[in-house]
């Protein structure tokens, strides 16, 4: 990306060139770029699967695929988007930004960093290859509930092994993030002076370290149940299928926050920059993030209210889940207060951030409705849930990633994207994302279950609208790719401080940022 600077550095470090440079690189910027490109690729593969799903659901009756393949598509779409698109995107942003934001030359563990990236292509090749097995890929949903997942074909051990690899990669990445943040901050940067993005990533990394091993345990038990005669999850041997759901969601709920906390950090960085005003309530933002993270470990069973828990359990998980609304509310209020009496401009990163606040909050509202156990008995496993989590993950997490890319692109490349095209991209994306996901609330409430390849005719109209929206959303992202390549072809013109209101150490570096961020640590007071 930053060719001229790289050239100088290459002479310094005798780096291999071409493909070998990328395979052997231990540089945080190179690895960050690898993560981001990989994530973009996975975003399109997962998106392609989503379009197969939406094409089949365009009208009732089966036109394109058989039900078994449809289930493989829903399962793979989720796995690819969560583990392949979103998580690597945030790790990529962390790689690029953390050293620059805390005044470090690189990540604490560069070689480990290389490993944690290069595990990913192997894991996903294996995962995707299962689609070409005779018995097909995984079809029991990304949650892999037994006994259904134990019925799966030959793909199961491969899926589990690739999930183990992905988990290992995330854990290594998280250890690296924590080691970097705790040990490599510039002198004078105390914890409570860290940029908020750094804070959210620190907390996310702890969540990863606590949650991913639990997933590893759960899927290992699945594996031994299937092949080694254990019966953790079968009633015949004294096990219980519901136990898997408990263990899975003990991982699964923190995982959800792993996907959203860094997004909060990004929004909390961009909103002040374009409001030209400091983030309102920095301290309460940090505490809110930490309390959301802690709460995430005691709310898991709200994903499984319908398994028949004792009344006390249902009440406990309903209350704790509702409680999450408090710190999340604090965040939203703080963002609004940051804008209040600011001096706002509306460049593309700001537009995506504003859309994030509104649409994520809508997802938060439906989340609050889902927390109400008696109502959840109606919502559970319908399209209302699908609408809810897509609202928090697409205009939530993905919008944050896109905003971050537009925001930091001039710093990474020294080149400015085309603002007009950026705005077109924003409006297309925002309009289509709502056309896709808003009608899902309606069909869900009207009674359409999720994970079905065909539906009763009264759900037709909203499904058609959602499918049209999905194709529009997909096409809009091609524009994003075009904007990225067009930017890379520009000459280097971006100022060191690319945005008038931007704050933070990364903007004191030249654009594009030098290969090793801070050779001498800056002084923070």
């Amino acid at each position, binding site marked *: 990306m930053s060719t001229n600077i790289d050239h100088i550095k290459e002479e310094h470090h005798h780096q291999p060139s071409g493909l070998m440079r990328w395979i052997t690189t231990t540089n945080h910027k190179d690895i960050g770029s690898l993560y981001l490109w990989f994530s973009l690729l996975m975003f399109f593969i997962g998106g392609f699967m989503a379009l197969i799903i939406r094409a089949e659901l365009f009208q009732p009756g089966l036109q394109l695929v058989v039900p078994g393949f449809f289930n493989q598509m829903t399962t793979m779409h989720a796995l690819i988007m969560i583990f392949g698109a979103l998580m690597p995107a945030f790790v990529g942003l962390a790689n690029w930004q953390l050293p620059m934001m805390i005044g470090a030359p690189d990540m604490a563990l560069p070689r480990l960093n290389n490993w944690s990236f290069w595990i990913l292509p192997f894991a996903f090749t294996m995962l995707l290859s299962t689609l070409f097995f005779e018995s097909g890929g995984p079809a029991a949903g990304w949650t892999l509930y037994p006994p259904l997942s134990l019925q799966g074909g030959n793909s199961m051990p491969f899926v589990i092994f690739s999930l183990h690899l992905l988990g290992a990669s995330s854990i290594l990445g998280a250890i690296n993030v924590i*080691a970097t943040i705790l040990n490599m901050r510039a002198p004078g940067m105390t914890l409570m002076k860290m940029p908020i993005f750094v804070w959210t990533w620190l907390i996310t990394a702890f969540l990863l370290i606590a*949650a991913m091993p*639990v997933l590893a*345990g759960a899927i290992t038990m699945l594996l031994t149940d299937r092949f080694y*005669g254990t019966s953790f999850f079968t009633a*015949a041997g004294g096990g219980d299928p519901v136990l898997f759901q408990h263990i899975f969601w003990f991982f699964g709920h923190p995982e959800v926050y792993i996907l959203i906390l860094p997004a909060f950090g990004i929004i909390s960085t961009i909103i002040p920059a374009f409001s030209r005003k400091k983030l309102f309530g920095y301290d309460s933002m940090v505490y809110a993030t930490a309390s959301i993270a802690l709460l995430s470990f005691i709310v898991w069973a709200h994903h499984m209210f319908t398994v028949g828990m004792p009344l006390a359990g249902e009440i406990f998980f309903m209350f704790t889940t509702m409680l999450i609304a408090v710190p999340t509310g604090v965040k939203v209020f703080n963002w609004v207060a940051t804008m209040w009496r600011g001096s706002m401009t509306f460049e593309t990163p700001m537009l995506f951030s504003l859309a994030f606040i509104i649409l994520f909050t809508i997802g938060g509202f439906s989340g609050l409705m889902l927390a109400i156990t008696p109502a959840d008995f109606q919502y559970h496993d319908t399209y209302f849930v699908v609408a809810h989590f897509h609202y928090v993950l697409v205009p939530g997490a993905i919008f944050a990633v896109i905003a971050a890319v537009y925001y930091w692109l001039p710093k990474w490349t020294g080149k400015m994207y085309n603002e007009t095209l950026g705005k077109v991209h924003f409006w297309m994306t925002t309009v289509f994302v709502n056309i896709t996901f808003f009608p899902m609330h309606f069909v869900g409430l009207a009674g359409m279950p999720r994970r079905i390849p065909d539906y009763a005719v009264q759900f037709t109209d909203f499904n058609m609208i959602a499918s049209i929206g999905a194709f529009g959303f997909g096409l809009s992202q091609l524009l994003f790719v075009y904007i990225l390549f067009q930017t890379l072809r520009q000459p280097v013109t971006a100022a060191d401080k690319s945005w008038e209101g931007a704050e933070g150490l990364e903007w004191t570096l030249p654009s594009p940022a030098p290969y090793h961020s801070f050779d001498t640590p800056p002084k923070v007071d």
Partner: protein
Amino acid sequence: MKSVKSTITKLSLVVVAMYGFSYALVPIYDTFCEITGLNGKTNEVAYTGSDIEKENRFIKIKFISNVANSAPLYFEPAVTEMVVQVGKPYNTHYVMKNNSTKQLHTTASPSVTPGKFAEYFKKIECFCFNQQTIDSGEVKDLGIQFVVDNDLPTNIGDIVLSYTMFDITNKVVEADKL
């Protein structure tokens, strides 16, 4: 760099501990189920205590049965309903018939609803403590002896006791081969 190393060590320990924790959840869950009656799990070993006292209180128990995975078994309760005195031991049985042409190995899994009353339903003897071997065409009576604990709260509805019979022939045969 020493501090980086100590960070890594600590974090690796957390990772290992959390992996262990996922396995620890298995016994934790069982204990939790026993306390709260989650899923209506009943005692898995015979009740041998003697602290249950007879009380002038009666409760209706319904017996139902299931056969898992449509196995070739007839499996039904001999009596579908009993009114029992709290604290007094009772006997009843289920009837199982092997409708297949070969010998089968089976095991039953009990479940009580409402789940919160499972802990008061004490089995002194139960076929569900053991596995069964049943020849082709054979009919077997499978006995239960139980007592309802006098700690059972008052003003509760009927209790339903369900057994699901699993055909585990493949698993048993495979284990024998090893």
